[in-house]
C-alpha cells in the first residue's frame, strides 16, 4: 500500500469504488424488489395473492416488468418540448440515487489493515483516528430531494398535455408545502445533536446498547418528518401529482418505455432514501446491540430498519385513500408547520433549562 494518489493511499480509492458499487447495486435491487414487495404486501392486505406466475411466487416479476418496459415503444409527443421531455426523467432519477452517498449504513470495518467507514462520502483519517464525512450531510440530502421535483415539474410542462401539467403543478405546490414542515421537523433533531453530519448524528444515538434513538426524544418530529417525507416523494395518501382517478397518470401520462420506468425507479429510490434518512435521524441509523463487537451487524440493522419503514409506507398505502387537494394543503400549512414550530420552541426551552 505504498502508492499514494493526491496524498491518499491506493486503498482509499479501491474502498471508495467498492462502496459505491455495493451500495448502488444494493439500492437498485431494493428498488426493483420494492415494487414486488409492494404488490405482494398490498395484495395480501387485500386478501389477494399478488404476483404469482413469474418465477416461484412471482419472484421474477420485477425483471419481467423491466424487460417489458425496455422493449416498449418510445413515444415523444409531437408538440412536446423534446429536450426537456428527454431530460426530465434523468433529473428525477439521479438525485434520488445520489442522495444515498451521505447516508451512513454501517460503522468502521477493517479490510487488510485499512479502516473503511461504511458511508460512501466518508474517509477514515488514520492520524486523527476518526471518520470525516460531509459535515452538512442533511443539507445535501434536503437539497437533492428538492432537485427531484424539477424532474416532475419539467416532465409535466414538457409533455404539453393538460393532465401532465396539472400533475406537475400539484407536485410543485405539494413539495413546497411539505418541504417546509419536514425541514422544521428535522431542526429539532439538530437542536439536540448540534451537528448536521449524519455520521455524528448516528454516533450520538448509540447509547443504551444502541437504543438512544431520537425517536424517543422527538416522537412528534419523527412522526411529522416521516409523513412530510411521504408527501414529498408523492407516496399515497399524498400521491396527488399522479392521481389516476382524476389526472390519468399525472406528470408521467405522456411517458412510455424506459423513461416511464425511470420515473417509477425514481419514486421507489426516493422511498428508499426517505426511509434510510428517517432511520438515520430517528431510529439510530445502523446502531443496535453488539455492533461494537461485530461491525458487520451495523449494515444488517440499518437494512432491517429501512425495510421496516418501507413496509410501513406500503402499509399506509394499503390503508389510506388519497387526500383531497384542499385537505393536503390544510394539513401541510395549518397543521404540520405550526406544530413543527411549537415543537422547536418547546425543544429550545427544555434544552435551555436542562
Amino acid at each position: 500500500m505504498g502508492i499514494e494518489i493526491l496524498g491518499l493511499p491506493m486503498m482509499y480509492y479501491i474502498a471508495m469504488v467498492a462502496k459505491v458499487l455495493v451500495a448502488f447495486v444494493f439500492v437498485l435491487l431494493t428498488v426493483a424488489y420494492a415494487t414486488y414487495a409492494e404488490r405482494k404486501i398490498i395484495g395480501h392486505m387485500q386478501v389477494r395473492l399478488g404476483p404469482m406466475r413469474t418465477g416461484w411466487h412471482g419472484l421474477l416479476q420485477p425483471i419481467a416488468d423491466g424487460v417489458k418496459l425496455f422493449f416498449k415503444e418510445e413515444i415523444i409527443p409531437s408538440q412536446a418540448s423534446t429536450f426537456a421531455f428527454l431530460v426530465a426523467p434523468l433529473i428525477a432519477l439521479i438525485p434520488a440515487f445520489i442522495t444515498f452517498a451521505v447516508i451512513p449504513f454501517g460503522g468502521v470495518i477493517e479490510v487488510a489493515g485499512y479502516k473503511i467507514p461504511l458511508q460512501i462520502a466518508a474517509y477514515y483519517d488514520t492520524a486523527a483516528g476518526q471518520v470525516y464525512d460531509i459535515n452538512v450531510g442533511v443539507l445535501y440530502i434536503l437539497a437533492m430531494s428538492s432537485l427531484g421535483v424539477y424532474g416532475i415539474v419539467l416532465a409535466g410542462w414538457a409533455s404539453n398535455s393538460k393532465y401532465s401539467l396539472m400533475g406537475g403543478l400539484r407536485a410543485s405546490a405539494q413539495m413546497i408545502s411539505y418541504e417546509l414542515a419536514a425541514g422544521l421537523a428535522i431542526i429539532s433533531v439538530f437542536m439536540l445533536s448540534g451537528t448536521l453530519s449524519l455520521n455524528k448524528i448516528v454516533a450520538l444515538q448509540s447509547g443504551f446498547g444502541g437504543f438512544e434513538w431520537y425517536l424517543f426524544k422527538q416522537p412528534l418530529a419523527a412522526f411529522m418528518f416521516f409523513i412530510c417525507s411521504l408527501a414529498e416523494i408523492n407516496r399515497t395518501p399524498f400521491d396527488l401529482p399522479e392521481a389516476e382517478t382524476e389526472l390519468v397518470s399525472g406528470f408521467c401520462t405522456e411517458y412510455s418505455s424506459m423513461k416511464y420506468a425511470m420515473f417509477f425507479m425514481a419514486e421507489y429510490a426516493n422511498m428508499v432514501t426517505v426511509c434510510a434518512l428517517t432511520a438515520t435521524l430517528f431510529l439510530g441509523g445502523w446502531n443496535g446491540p453488539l455492533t461494537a463487537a461485530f461491525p458487520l451487524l451495523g449494515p444488517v440493522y440499518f437494512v432491517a430498519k429501512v425495510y421496516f419503514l418501507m413496509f410501513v409506507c406500503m402499509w399506509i398505502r394499503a390503508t389510506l385513500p388519497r387526500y383531497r387537494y384542499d385537505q393536503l394543503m390544510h394539513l401541510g400549512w395549518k397543521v404540520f408547520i405550526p406544530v413543527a414550530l411549537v415543537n422547536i420552541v418547546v425543544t429550545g426551552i427544555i434544552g435551555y433549562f436542562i
Partner: protein
Amino acid sequence: MNPITPIINGMKITFKHMFMKPVTLQYPTERPKVSQRFRGLHGLKVSHSKAKCVACYLCPTVCPAKCITVEAAEDANHDKYAAVYEIDMLRCIFCGYCVEACPVDALKMTGEFELANYHRQDFIYSKERLLEK
C-alpha cells in the same frame, strides 16, 4: 373524533388482513367448484342410449334469445325425435328457460363454463356435442 384514531384502526385492519388466507383462485391450475345449479353449457340427457328429446319445439319457443334450432323427424319406431338440435352459444343468455320448459326432462345445464373458441362456427353446438357423455 380526532383524526388519528380512524387511521390507526384502519392500519390495524389491514395488518390483520395480511395474515388471512387469500381468496384468490389460481385459475388455470386451480379449478372453481361450480354450484349444483350452475347454468353453464347445455347437455341433452340420454336414456336407453338415445337422446330423451322428443322434438316438441317448446325450448325454441320459450327461448328469449332465439338461439335453439330444432328439426323433428321420425325414426324407425315411428317416434318423433330431433334430427337437428343446435344451440348458438353466441346468442344464448344462459337463462335456463329451455330446461324449465322441457316436458320430458331431456335438457339440463352442466357446470361447463369454458366456452371460448377461435371460430364463430365453433360456437354453434350441434346435437352430437350437446349429448351428455
